[in-house]
């Protein structure tokens, strides 16, 4: 498995050559300074990339991720979770640019915001002209759990070919009343129920990784870091 583990503080440039398959895990966990970095991945014919961003550190993070689906039949799965607390500020820009026919991209980023943290999600699906059978999906879901947390999202589309299937969705809200009620009626406290739902919210992203080995690696980091962070935040 072409597996790459990098620190999201650093810039990353990656070229996925013909018929290659790459797995990238970018993380920023325990860190309390400002971060500005960018990631660019270019995928050539029939290449495929699985990218996962795990973000819970940094005081103010500005992260740009650009995926260029250059070759025909190129494929990208861009996943990410972020967890903000106190006055952390996240600015994420995620662009999937389709330049090859039959290219497919799935972008799915979930965030949870505690305290006064805030997130800015700037998503863009760009499909160049003259392409065929392009499929692209972009999603950003945010749970606001802090009283003063705030979320902005601009999931944009620029489509210049007609033979496409392209969609996006974004939601901002709290954990569902019905779910909270269900769990509490089974004996969980409100905090435990919220924690469980938040974990499930993150796992809905990791479960999109088809490769078991990579999914385990991502989960490992989530177990080791995020869950502690979540439980600490809740018990605070």
């Amino acid at each position, binding site marked *: 498995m072409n597996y790459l583990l990098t620190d999201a503080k650093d810039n990353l440039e990656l070229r996925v050559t013909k018929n290659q398959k790459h797995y990238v895990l970018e993380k920023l966990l325990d860190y309390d300074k400002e971060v500005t970095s960018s990631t660019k991945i270019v995928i050539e014919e029939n290449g495929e990339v699985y990218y996962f961003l795990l973000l819970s550190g940094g005081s103010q993070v500005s992260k740009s991720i650009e995926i260029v689906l250059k070759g025909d039949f190129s494929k990208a799965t861009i996943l990410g979770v972020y967890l903000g607390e106190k006055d952390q500020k996240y600015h994420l820009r995620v662009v999937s640019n389709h330049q090859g026919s039959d290219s497919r991209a799935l972008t799915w980023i979930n965030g949870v915001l505690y305290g006064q943290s805030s997130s800015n999600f700037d998503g863009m699906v760009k499909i160049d*002209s003259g392409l065929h059978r392009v499929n692209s999906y972009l999603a950003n879901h945010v749970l606001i759990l802090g009283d*003063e947390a705030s979320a*902005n999202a601009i999931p944009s*589309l620029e*489509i210049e070919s*007609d033979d496409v299937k392209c969609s*996006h969705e*974004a939601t901002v809200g*709290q954990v569902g009343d019905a779910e909270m009620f269900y769990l509490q009626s089974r004996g969980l406290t409100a905090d435990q129920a919220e924690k469980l739902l938040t974990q499930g919210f993150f796992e809905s992203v990791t479960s999109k990784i088809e490769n078991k080995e990579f999914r385990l690696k991502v989960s490992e980091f989530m177990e080791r870091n995020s869950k502690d962070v979540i439980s600490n935040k809740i018990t605070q």
Partner: protein
Amino acid sequence: MARVDFKIGAENYKYGFADREDYIYKSDKGLSPEVVKKISDIKNEPPWMREFRLAALSIFQSKPMPGWGADLSTLDFNNIHYYVKPSEKQSGSWQDVPVYIKNTFDKLGIPEAEKKFLAGVGAQYESEMIYHNLAQDLSKKGVIFSDMDSAVKDYPDLVRKYFSTIIPPSDNKFAALNSACWSGGSFIYVPKGVRVEIPLQAYFRINTKNMGQFERTLIIADEGSFVHYLEGCSAPIYTTDSLHSAVVEIIVKKGARVRYTTIQNWSTNVYNLVTKRARVEEEGVCEWVDANLGSKVTMKYPSVYLVGRKAKGDILSIAFASRNQVQDAGGKALHFAPETSSSIISKSISKNGGRTSFRGLLKVFPGAKASKSMVRCDALILDSLSRSDTYPTIQIDEKQVSIGHEAVVSKIGDEQLFYLMSRGLNETQAMGMVVNGFIEPIVKEIPLEYALEMNKLIQLQMEGVG
């Protein structure tokens, strides 16, 4: 499958007839304090309005052009007549309307429409309302439906109290332009508890080369009242570019409901740059139904400012862009108060190299607890030359909210076309049927005769004989 050659262009424009120009006063091209003063003089306005216009002019001159959205670089502000006055006085009945103007309206079908169910028609031909008629029972209830120019003189207190309170001249460059040289438009006041069951409507047209049309509409729905206002636009073809820049302000008081329906079918050389906004108070409802078919460039984002508890705003938008057209449309919902709700539904279709853009804003301010909003944009691209964009902005500063946004861009499914064609339709008919089905959820909100007209216009666009 053979590609159908869609022939649609200026030469086929259905309402592209032009009457000879016959005017009492026509301002020189370009905009200056003298032109603004002249407009004010001709209209015999009170000093406050004259001052308002001149202040707005300097705001217009100091503001930059918007740095986003459609390309406006070919718009030349110095090449436009800012005011044209067509005939001497307003007519009270249809018989008194000049024949050549009647001919124009006949081709648009206004009298028939009126016969069917219209209570009052304010038809704006060029810059003034030339025909005005409101059913007597509405007058008795205290409903005011007049043109804006008359309202400044006849209802000075009401106008002065509300005019420009929702959209000040400093709001944007085109609101400032409109504030400086506005002419015509409708003024509606519905008193407390009065329900106007029949839609009020006005038809707007542009008819002089290079004439900007800057109508100004103000609607005040007092507590618990209801009114539905309908505007349809249709302009003849000219070779040089025209500018249409309207301002529409709506005030929805406690428990009132206002529906504002627009069918915009300007000819394909018109810049349509419009600012529309409603302020909705407690338990009030404002609904914008906005269909954009024509024009060269449209930039229009009807807005709802939900300022009272449980206020509600709905925006339904249809955009159809064909060759050389840019439809940059959408909607904005701003939640200032608790338990407010909004929905924005947009359907756009691009074809023959046309470009549709959905541009939206959804903002929830701190304290707007338990607010809900749903934004949905669907786009169809009918050929490989066309383009569709989606730029929704979502800003949430409140925890207790439920916000959703969805957008889908696709072409017409092969299986849908195959199904219809296997039933004996040709490809154009099949595509037209799919497109009509696509916009149906919005069209059904439009009164019947307009809905029929919409479907016909779409079919004509698809067949390329419109």
